[in-house]
């Protein structure tokens, strides 16, 4: 029997099982940012302002996200407050029932701006600190006075009664400040802190030699976080993203490719994770040409590594395959040269020893950063 001539919509059995419903969407509203963090997860090729989606398209994307079942939207960048239509987007998200989370670096954000963002209905603010002290923040972000401005923003966020999370990215130069980051979060009235190790894509991959912590630092950090978690239970939630270079099992990256979340870039490309563009030959669809649910269900990039069918035999036969989903596709690409390989962070991967050796060699490097640069200083505000 042949079904070849049948139009697809008449088939009773879908070509593949319906994908799960996503919970979260990261909306990278712009790549513009006044800071120059050397670990920035934005791609090295930054989107220019003239290719950014317009307001109307973003509003449509938010409506489609809500309909698709997305519950939380993370308004990020770059620096999302560089978009003057941010408040309009927040209001729209609230209207269609989306929970809104602002992820900001806090530089160039005035008191008036925060008030209007709060009035628009923002639910939660995540504020990044590149260091726990002014010296460190200013050095890592390559922006003099950044720390002071962030402190002011944090105070204002709390004064407005908004829940605050402090985001800190740690690496070799500032990892020793973890206890100070935790103190800082407490003193600013944050209820949550994210302590994430640099992830080596985009700018961070360029700077890996300058960022990679030593093994001793990583294990020290684990102990410090564990101790603080117990001590601060009920006062401060500490979410720590452990670097998996030195671990036994890989991270369940994105909790599975195309399973829970999606990411829209400033120019409208829809990615399964923010680093997915580092995998060559994946066909990413754009919200300019497709509805969000069409992208989620049908785009080749989302289906490439969804579920467990794509897995190499090592993962397929492993009882952790639906726990860590074979780890990170981008790391497999970067280290194994094959996005469909077992993540080399897994101790079962034949490349695990290589990854470890690479990390240890990098941890010996110097701390000269190749700062993230956005060549057209184009600060809105």
């Amino acid at each position, binding site marked *: 029997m042949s079904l070849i001539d049948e139009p697809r919509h008449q088939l009773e059995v879908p070509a593949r099982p319906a994908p799960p*419903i996503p919970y979260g969407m990261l909306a990278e509203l712009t790549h513009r940012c006044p800071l120059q963090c050397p670990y920035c997860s934005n791609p090295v090729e930054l989107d220019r302002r003239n290719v950014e989606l317009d307001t109307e398209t973003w509003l449509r994307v938010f409506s489609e996200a809500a309909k698709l079942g997305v519950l939380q939207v993370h308004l990020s960048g770059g620096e999302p407050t560089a978009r003057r239509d941010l408040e309009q987007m927040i209001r729209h998200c609230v209207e269609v029932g989306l929970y809104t989370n602002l992820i900001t670096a806090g530089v160039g954000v005035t008191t008036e701006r925060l008030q209007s963002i709060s009035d628009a209905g923002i639910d939660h603010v995540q504020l990044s600190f590149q260091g726990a002290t002014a010296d460190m923040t200013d050095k890592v972000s390559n922006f003099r006075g950044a720390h002071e401005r962030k402190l002011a923003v944090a105070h204002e966020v709390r004064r407005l009664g908004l829940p605050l999370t402090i985001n800190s990215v740690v690496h070799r130069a500032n990892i020793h400040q973890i206890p100070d980051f935790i103190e800082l979060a407490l003193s600013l009235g944050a209820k949550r802190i994210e302590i994430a190790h640099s992830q080596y894509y985009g700018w961070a991959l360029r700077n890996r030699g300058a960022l990679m912590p030593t093994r001793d630092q990583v294990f020290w950090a684990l102990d410090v976080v564990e101790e603080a978690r117990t001590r601060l239970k009920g006062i401060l939630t500490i979410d720590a993203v452990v670097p998996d270079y030195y671990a036994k099992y890989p991270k369940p990256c994105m909790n599975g490719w195309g399973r829970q979340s999606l990411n829209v870039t400033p120019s409208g490309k829809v990615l399964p994770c923010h680093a997915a563009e580092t995998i060559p030959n994946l066909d990413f669809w754009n919200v300019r040409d497709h509805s969000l649910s069409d992208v989620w269900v049908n785009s080749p990039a989302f289906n490439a590594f969804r579920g467990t069918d794509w897995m190499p035999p090592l993962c397929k036969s492993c009882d952790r395959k639906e726990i860590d989903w074979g780890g990170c596709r981008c790391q497999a690409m970067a280290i194994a040269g094959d996005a469909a390989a077992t993540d080399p962070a897994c101790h079962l991967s034949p490349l695990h020893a290589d990854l470890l050796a690479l990390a240890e060699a990098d941890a010996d490097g110097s701390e000269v950063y190749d700062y993230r640069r956005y060549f057209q200083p184009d600060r809105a505000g």
Partner: protein
Amino acid sequence: MTATLAANSVPRLARGVRLRHDEARGQWVLLAPERVLNPDPVAVEILKKVDGARSIGLIVDELAAAFTVERQTIATDVDAFLAGLAEKGLIEVTSPLVGDAAS
């Protein structure tokens, strides 16, 4: 189980916490910073009444009227549930905790 919240205190969802019906999955969800909680049907009935106006006593009265469960049982459940949410910072209660749970 000791009572921890006064019956005349008024709970409301903290800023950044929202209860909504999730059409796509056909369930109620409590949304909080970086969290999605799935309250069970009893919890949903309680949460729907947490509006910053009703006191805990009134919430218990209304639930007792709506369900054929003894008022004392409801009071105990509501108290335990709301005290737990308050501890997690998901709700705010106008008057301070009285007594202390033997936890």
